[in-house]
Each structure stands twice: as structure tokens, then as C-alpha cells.
């Protein structure tokens, strides 16, 4: 229908494949996110530690630079599993802040004026909508966690002798697994809380509360009841336990108190429970129409 004709005409042209529709949700979400200069600048800042890590690697492998800087790198500063674990843990938290800035706004705009029904009245399922949103968080977190992790591993393998890469080959799996574990937990939890609360500011507060206030409550719980099990409510602690296991960090040298650690099975069970509760919440709340009981 041409503009000047102003008549209604049905559309008989080509259609995009049905499986690719989630990509439309993701594309528009990305485009909206990066319209914000603050968000774009923050995303760039998330790469700063990676550049420092590259510089660090270079200095360690260059006696000339060390001589110029007047420093001597000892064996304690070697690049190993612990180094990767700590660097990517820091990156994971950068990613967390990035996702916290992105997720509530990305979801609340669809809920604020009941726009969700307009998504779901189209050939787009709730799952596809969710996959579209999760893929935005996944791409953002991947870009600052496991992808730079793998690049750093490749760089280190290149700079170090052949034996290092072979000895630390398991780190490839650790980097990828830890990255995707973080993505799964963060994206599901943040989306569930955002969908539940529907209000951007409240959702952001709730997310920060779960990660920064809940550990305080967990420790208070432990102190009052003289137990260690309150830590199952301390999600950063639980994730750190798993993180260290994935990177094969010796528990005695990890930065989690060796004594009174929760058993690993409880850490995995907590993470699994958080994911299941988030999925349940999304299933309950991500609907075109909510039914009032009565």
C-alpha cells in the first residue's frame, strides 16, 4: 500500500523464519540499551581489567620491559588457574553490574504499559520472548567473562612455552563453564525479579539486595543460630565456592575461609534451586494476561 493511496492491503510477501523471531526482541533490546551513553561507557569500562591483564602478561613475559620498569616478577605472580579464577571473578562482577543496569529496564518497558500482550499476540511464544531477553544478557556477560578469558588463555599459551598450554588445558573448560554458569544464574534471577516487580527502580533494588544484603542476613542467621547453613542464602559465597571448584583452586589457598565451608553439594543445590525458582517465577508472571483469583 503506497502512502498516497491510503488503503488497507494484506501482506503477502516473504516472512522471516519463525525460529529467528527471538532475534528481533534481542536486536531491539540491544539497540535501546546502547542508545544510552552511560551504558555504552560502562560497557567499555568493563574491558579495562582485561587490557590490564594483557599488559600484565606482556610484562611477565618480557624481561626487557621488567628491566626498564625496574621490577622483577617472582614465581608468586605466575599466571595459573588461580590468576584466571580471580581475574574472571572480577570480570563476572563487572558483568553483574552491567546486567543489573540492563535487565530491569529492558523488561519493565514491556510491562509498564501492558506491551507484553502485543508481543504474545504475535507468532512469538513466551519462551521465545524470554530467550530474546536472555540472549541480550548472555551476549553482554559473555563479552566480559568467558570470551576475554579464552583470548587471555590463548595469549598466555602463545607467550609461554608449549608445556603450559598442555598443563592448563582444563582451564578452557573452566573458563567456559564458569562463564555460562554465571550467565545462567544471573540472567534467570534478574529476569525473574524484574518480571515479578515490573518496576525498574524496585527491580534494580531487589537485585542488588539479593546479592549484597542477603549475605548480611545470611551471616546474621549464622551468628544467631551458630550454624554455617545460613550461607545457602549468600549467593555470591555459593557461586564463589563453585567457581573455585571449577578452576581447581586449592581450597586452602582460595579466598574463602577453609574452615566452616559449606559442602560442594549444597552449593550446587543452592544454585539449582535459585534457577528453578526463577524459572517458576517467570512461568507464573510472564503472561499476556494475569488472572485475578476470587
Amino acid at each position, binding site marked *: 500500500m503506497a502512502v498516497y493511496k*491510503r488503503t488497507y492491503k494484506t*501482506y503477502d510477501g516473504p516472512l522471516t523464519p519463525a525460529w529467528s523471531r527471538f532475534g528481533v526482541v534481542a536486536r531491539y533490546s540491544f539497540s535501546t540499551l546502547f542508545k544510552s551513553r552511560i551504558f555504552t561507557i560502562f560497557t567499555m569500562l568493563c574491558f579495562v581489567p582485561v587490557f590490564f591483564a594483557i599488559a600484565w602478561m606482556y610484562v611477565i613475559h618480557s624481561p626487557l620491559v621488567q628491566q626498564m620498569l625496574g621490577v622483577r616478577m617472582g614465581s608468586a605472580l605466575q599466571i595459573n588457574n588461580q590468576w584466571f579464577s580471580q581475574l574472571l571473578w572480577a570480570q563476572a562482577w563487572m558483568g553483574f553490574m552491567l546486567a543489573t543496569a540492563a535487565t530491569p529496564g529492558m523488561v519493565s518497558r514491556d510491562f509498564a504499559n501492558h506491551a507484553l500482550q502485543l508481543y504474545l*499476540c504475535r507468532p512469538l511464544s513466551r519462551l521465545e520472548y524470554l530467550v530474546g531477553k536472555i540472549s541480550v544478557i548472555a551476549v553482554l556477560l559473555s563479552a566480559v567473562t568467558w570470551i576475554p578469558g579464552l583470548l587471555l588463555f590463548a595469549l598466555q599459551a602463545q607467550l609461554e612455552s608449549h608445556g603450559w598450554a598442555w598443563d592448563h588445558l582444563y582451564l578452557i573448560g573452566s573458563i567456559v563453564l564458569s562463564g555460562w554458569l554465571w550467565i545462567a544464574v544471573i540472567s534467570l534471577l534478574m529476569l525473574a525479579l524484574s518480571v515479578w516487580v515490573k518496576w525498574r527502580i524496585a527491580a534494580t533494588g531487589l537485585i542488588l539486595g539479593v546479592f549484597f544484603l542477603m549475605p548480611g542476613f545470611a551471616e546474621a542467621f549464622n551468628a544467631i543460630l551458630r550454624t554455617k547453613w545460613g550461607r545457602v542464602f549468600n549467593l555470591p559465597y555459593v557461586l564463589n565456592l563453585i567457581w573455585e571448584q571449577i578452576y581447581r583452586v586449592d581450597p586452602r589457598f582460595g579466598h574463602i575461609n577453609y574452615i566452616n565451608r559449606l559442602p560442594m553439594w549444597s552449593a550446587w543445590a543452592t544454585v539449582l534451586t535459585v534457577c528453578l525458582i526463577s524459572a517458576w517465577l517467570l512461568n507464573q508472571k510472564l503472561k499476556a*494476561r494475569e488472572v485475578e483469583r476470587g
Partner: protein
Amino acid sequence: MDVVPVVELQNLEVKLGGRTILDGLNGSLSGHCIGLLGPNGSGKSTLINTLLGFYPPSSGTAHIFGEDIKGKIKQLRALIGYMPESDAFIADMTGVRFVRYMAELSGLPAREAMERAHEAFFYVGLGEARYRKVGTYSLGMKQLVKLAQALAHGPKLILLDEPTNGLDPEARQRMLQLVRDIRDTGKVHVVISSHLLHDIEECCDEVLILNKGRIAALCNLEEERKANLKFLELEVNNENGFVHAIHQLGCECASFGNGRLKIVLPENIQLRRIYELAAEHTVQIRRMNYRRDSLEDIFLKAMEGRQEMVKGSANGRI
């Protein structure tokens, strides 16, 4: 050749929150513009939401273009454009970007979606405001942008839930004119839900009247108009043989005393014959009201709880 009904309801029952909202709906709707009429809370919006797959039927089913909504809702949604009753928009998007986004979600490639988003905006008369953020639009403009997003992907069935809600008379007329224009293209079927009789009467050729979740009447307005049953209200000075003569002419006639008569004039009898009969029987006609059975009459009868099919209905069962 059998025409596939646009919407077919088969003992459709929907329960929400433990309450029965739609109760055993049966009927077949084939019009180009179908009205869903009923008082607030009668189940109109629930029926639309069920057709869109938002609410699962607790029993029975519905078919759209012959396809069961239970199994093929995703394919059916590609053929449907939906304009919800409540606000539904993304406030911080420009109008044209919002409609383009919705068209892309319906499966249009980005380029075509952009083109049709612009066209839809001009079509609904918002061309000049298409680069403004939707959140800044007036209520009437928001209604129009909802219509634009329902049209942009070129659906074959458009579901409009209370499209004239909150509009001033001028905007309401413009909205109804748009609906009539869409209907008159003949390429698309429109279902309008409204509690305003006038809106339905102006646009629709078939109407489903709901009351308390049940079908109160299913009426083919077009056939009703074609049948053109003429209702006459007469006041005469005396009825000397006049009533009998009218009966003999083949008209239904009821006398209410004091010379007040009601006559149903069949299609093949001209009004002139009534005047001739009056002259033959030296009866003075002092007053005559001439009107057809209107949607208002049909609606009022239906609301009174008459569980009979209104004359002229073609397909439905109650």
C-alpha cells in the same frame, strides 16, 4: 462450496480464578465485520483473549479459519492483528519504530516492516506524529497507534477490543470510519468488541451478543437488513374491519386498543397498500411511525433473557 467460518465456537468454556467466564459458547461467525456486544463483564474481552490463546479453554474449543486454536495458535497468530482495550505500547519508542518492531515480530523482514509501519501510520492518520515517542501521544493517538500496529503486518483477521474507548466524538467517528474502510476492502475480517450499540450497528454485518458469559443472541445484521422487516406503529380513528383486512393482506397486526396498531410489513407489500386499505374502510390514519427492528431491540430482547435465536440469524445455536 462451503465457506470456512471466520470463528467457530464449539461448546467453549473458560474458567478463570475458579469462576466460569465463558459458559458453553456455540456458534459460527462468518461476517466481514463481526460485533461482540454485551454489557461490561459479559465475557467479550475474555472471548477475544481466548481466541488469541491467552486463556486456555477449560472445555470445548474454538476454530479460526477452520484451524483449532488449541493446536495451531502460533500459526493463527500470524494471521491476526490485535488491538487491546487497555493501553499497550512501549512509551520510550517513537511511534514508527514501535510499529516497525511489532511488524518484525509478526515475521516481516526489517525493510518491509519499516515500509509498512510508515504506511500504517499514514493510513490511520498519524503520519505527522510518527517520529514522536508513543508516551507523549494523546489518548486518541494512542488508540490509533494500537490500530496501526494491528494493521502493519497485513493480517487477515483483526480483533479490536473496545476500539472507541475514551475517544471524543470526532475521534470516535474517525476510528469507526477506519474500521468501515478496512471492512470494505473485503480482504480482511474484523471482530469488534464493544458495549456501544451504535459502534456495532455502524460497522458490523454480524453480531454476537453475550450476557453473563453466555450467548444471548447471534444475529446476522446484514440478513436482518435484507429481510427489511418493517414495523409500523399506527394510530387510527376506528378499526372497523381494518385490522381484519390487514391480516388478509398477509401482514402481522396487533391491536392495543384506542386505535393503536402495530403492523409488521412483509417485503412484498408496499406501504401504499395500507393507505389504500384505510381508504377502503374509511379509516383515518392519524399517526404513523415507520421503523425497522434495530440492533437496540435485538439487544434489549437478548438482555431480557430470551433464549431464542433472533430472527434472521443464520448459523448459531444457543
